[in-house]
């Protein structure tokens, strides 16, 4: 029977492949793929480290070792989401500033040519 750790390992491999495919097709920039690749690699390695998870489980008060990995996944992915929210916000601010600047420059150009 397939265990929860096996499912998580498969998820890690799928995530790794999806991100590598997106990189190859230039859908994701390299600097933005690092977080996802690190998360996928951590998922694969930890899901194959049953002994490590068994040792960690009592330290954080959970009975089942796979729950340790699920908690770690949650923390890592929250971190990734937060990082990308910051990136998107910064990009939006820059985009607005650039859009306004382009419009103002075009306005000055039209004024200069007597077309505003």
């Amino acid at each position, binding site marked *: 029977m397939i265990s929860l750790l096996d499912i998580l390992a498969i998820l890690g491999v799928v995530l790794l492949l999806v991100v590598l495919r997106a990189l190859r097709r230039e859908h994701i920039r390299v600097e933005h793929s690092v977080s996802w690749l690190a998360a996928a690699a951590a998922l694969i390695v930890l899901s194959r480290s049953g002994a490590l998870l068994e040792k960690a489980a009592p330290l954080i008060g959970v009975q089942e070792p796979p729950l340790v990995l699920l908690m770690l996944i949650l923390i890592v992915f929250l971190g990734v989401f937060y990082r990308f929210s910051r990136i998107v916000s910064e990009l939006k601010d820059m985009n*607005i500033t650039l*859009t*306004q600047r*382009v*419009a*103002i420059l*075009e*306005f000055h150009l039209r*004024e200069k040519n007597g077309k*505003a």
Partner: protein
Amino acid sequence: MVDGSRTLILIPAFNEAAAIGAVVREVRQHLPGWPVLVVDDGSADGTAAEARAAGARVLSLPCHLGLGGCVQAGYKLAFELGYEEVVRIDGDGQHDPRHIPMLLETLRRSGCEMAIGVRTADGARGATLARRAGIWCFRMLLRPILGRPVTDPTSGFVAVNRRALEVFARSFPLEYPEIETLVVLQRRRFRFVEAPAPARPRLAGKSSITPLRSVYYVVHVLLGVFVNILRLDARRAARAVGEQLDDQPS
């Protein structure tokens, strides 16, 4: 007659082709010689062409930014061009341009940084029940934050002087700016004044605030208000203004 040669009439517009021409012509008819700038927020219906044909100068944004980004673009240009004041009216014809000199006079006489045209005595008459409830909530929320009552916090009919213009050119709320703007001003220890300016029915189109969007509007504005209160740069600016005032001889 109020001198408007250093005052820019700013009209943000998004898909207002049916109304913008009449709005610009009415402003030019009542206030001949006053500079009029329409900021076209990436409209797809010929708003910019209609505004130009009516005699306005047009700042065309290459893509849709939303009301805050659109108004801020106008403020930035006005600041760069050296205008002393900007009066903002809506592009749907709700605001009567005959009230503009009165609002400007109020701004100048008061010494405040912003003057708000109050559409009705309670700021909400004629609006839907949900909208009236929303405006009432905002008024209750803003009173302790601003330290004074505000009658019509969602009015888009406002006049600002160059000090406010400088601040708004650098930092301006993006989506639903009217209420957050008051908090931005308050954090910098700027002041506002209100003057009655009854609104009219819009010439064309309908409000973008649907019942569903109004829920998002309320949540967004509440969050924006609290973020502005917490924002560090605003606190530093307020402190700096306070120190300048303290340094001035009494």
